[in-house]
């Protein structure tokens, strides 16, 4: 009991915020300036474009219209958005389950091994995304390695179509996002106080209890960060879903991309993008409000 209380106190400690003096204001100006110029201004531009029209060549015509938004609020686009969110959710969940034990193992390893292992997690992704994905295609395709292996081991008698299925899509997504789950969780695990865990074991707790009552709460910030860094980018991802899924199930990222290329309708793409941003910001704001009320 004492252990869990201590753990809880450490996990939910309030930040000792001071009012910003001159120095901190000066220090934060570069980031503010960056945000203002390269984030806010482009976002505002998108907002403006989303209310515009376009001509036959795809150039933007600056005349105010709501048509892009009325067009966006259609079931067909919302369905595609829903599928994208669902894929992102599945990917995040699987990454969490697969990645947490790895992060835990690396974080609790000796200092020498730790650095090596964490680099080894990332190194495969310093190859080009396309050759990695094509390597997966050659593993999973009908004439590929996996089928060859399964048939040689006599587990199956005919090749299975792994490629161009939702299974392939999730596999591709999980593969590409796994390090972005492992790394943040690792940073939380790394600062775990070993004596806390030892104490829990000495008090006779089973590993499962130690985990759920001590380790998981303490690594919660890392998990939250990992979930954020996987779920958020995964929604707008389309290159992987396109290559691994055969393009059969378009994602919202692909739809927006198409507006800027084949469909030559930049304002509509901008409107969809603004909506996506709005959904995000709303859910982030809601979740922070929820967290605040929880702490009180």
């Amino acid at each position, binding site marked *: 009991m004492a252990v869990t209380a201590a753990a809880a106190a450490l996990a939910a400690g309030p930040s000792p915020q001071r009012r910003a003096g001159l120095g901190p204001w000066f220090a934060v100006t570069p980031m503010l300036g960056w945000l203002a110029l390269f984030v806010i201004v482009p976002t505002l531009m998108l907002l403006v474009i989303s209310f515009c029209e376009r001509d036959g060549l795809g150039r933007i015509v600056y005349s105010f219209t709501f048509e892009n938004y009325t067009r966006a609020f259609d079931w067909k686009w919302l369905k595609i958005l829903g599928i994208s969110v669902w894929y992102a959710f599945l990917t995040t969940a699987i990454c969490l389950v697969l990645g947490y034990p790895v992060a835990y193992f690396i974080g609790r390893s000796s200092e020498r091994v730790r650095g090596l292992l964490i680099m080894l997690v990332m190194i495969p992704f310093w190859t080009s995304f396309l050759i990695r994905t094509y390597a997966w295609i050659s593993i999973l395709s009908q004439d590929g390695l996996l089928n060859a292996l399964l048939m040689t081991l006599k587990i199956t008698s005919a090749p299975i179509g792994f490629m161009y299925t939702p299974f392939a899509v999730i596999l591709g997504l999980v593969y590409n996002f796994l390090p972005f789950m492992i790394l943040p969780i690792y940073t939380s695990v790394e600062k775990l106080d070993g004596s806390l865990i030892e104490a829990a074991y000495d008090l006779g707790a089973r590993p499962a209890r130690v985990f759920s009552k001590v380790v998981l709460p303490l690594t919660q910030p890392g998990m939250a960060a990992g979930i954020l860094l996987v779920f958020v980018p995964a929604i707008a991802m389309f290159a992987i879903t396109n290559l691994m899924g055969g393009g*059969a199930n378009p994602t919202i990222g692909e739809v927006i991309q198409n507006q800027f*290329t084949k469909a030559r*309708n930049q304002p509509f793409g901008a409107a969809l993008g603004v909506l996506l941003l709005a959904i995000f910001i709303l859910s982030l704001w809601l979740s922070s409000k929820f967290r605040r009320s929880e702490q009180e």
Partner: protein
Amino acid sequence: MTKHKTKLIAAACAGAMLLAGCGKKDETLKLFSWSEYVPQAVIDKFTEETGIKVSVENYSSNEEMLAKLLAGGGAYDLIQPSEYAVQAMIKEDLLQELDQAKIPNLKNLAPEFRNMPFDPNNKFSVPWLAGFVGVVYNAEVVPGPVVGYKDVFTDEHAGRIVILDDARETVSWGLATAGIPINNVTDENLATITPLLKDWLGKVKVFDSDSPKTAMSNGDTDIGIVWSGEGALLFAENPKFQWVMPVEGVHMFVDNLAIPKTSQNKDKAEAFINFILRPEISKMISDEFPYYNPNLAARALLSPEQLNNPASYPPGFDVTSAQLFTDLGEQASKVDELITTLKAQ
């Protein structure tokens, strides 16, 4: 007095030249082309012969090229638009007229490519390579006969089909099958072919415009509608991949070189165009990309295998009968929405 005058003029000229050099006048030829569509060997040879350096930027679709060009991102000297993009750009006055006196090698082009509907008499553009969209199938698995689009989307092939991830293309096959001219992309015609397309798209396993041959080679699909270059690569890999020009109607695409209005190096660009029209250079391009070469003199240099590839040079096919795309303008958005919706069903 005259002596002083000439000296002054000479000094002024020298000064101007110096200033021009100081002002960093762009001496390099800025090429904005499809990714990997201009062989590096060709560029290197051009620089070797003329001393003109070439800088290359790539794009992967006409619209991407237009987006970057229109946004003003870089004064390009040469671009590689497809035929409908050339047509649209001529209409919007975005291209410079070519000085044909500087491009004598135009005579090497086959006559049907000298006067295409989207740019009569090559006023603004010069064809690079042409190609078709047709049917490829694995003859070991598909018994045939396969003659057209309707033979692709049969129930036996459901889940074993690969087609291009191109909404305009897909719609054109539907229109051709329904007997409607492929450039008549009106809302009514789209509505007419929607049930047909819905049935078709439900049977497709893979949509891929970049490398549809992958799905065929890997055995994940048995039949598909792909670019002729892809079909040619498949045929060269294994003759079991047969190529068929659809009987409902074939359309041809033509990629061209053109000079945007913003270019400052027109004469260098024209020199490059003239260079690639040389038979031996054009042959180098054909060696890398087994599409349809509009350069007759170059075709004479190709090997028998290249010429006998049914996807590159369809036997008995009358090129003048092929249809070309016209620019869709705002309808492009409707087409894209239709196909995206049908895919997501």
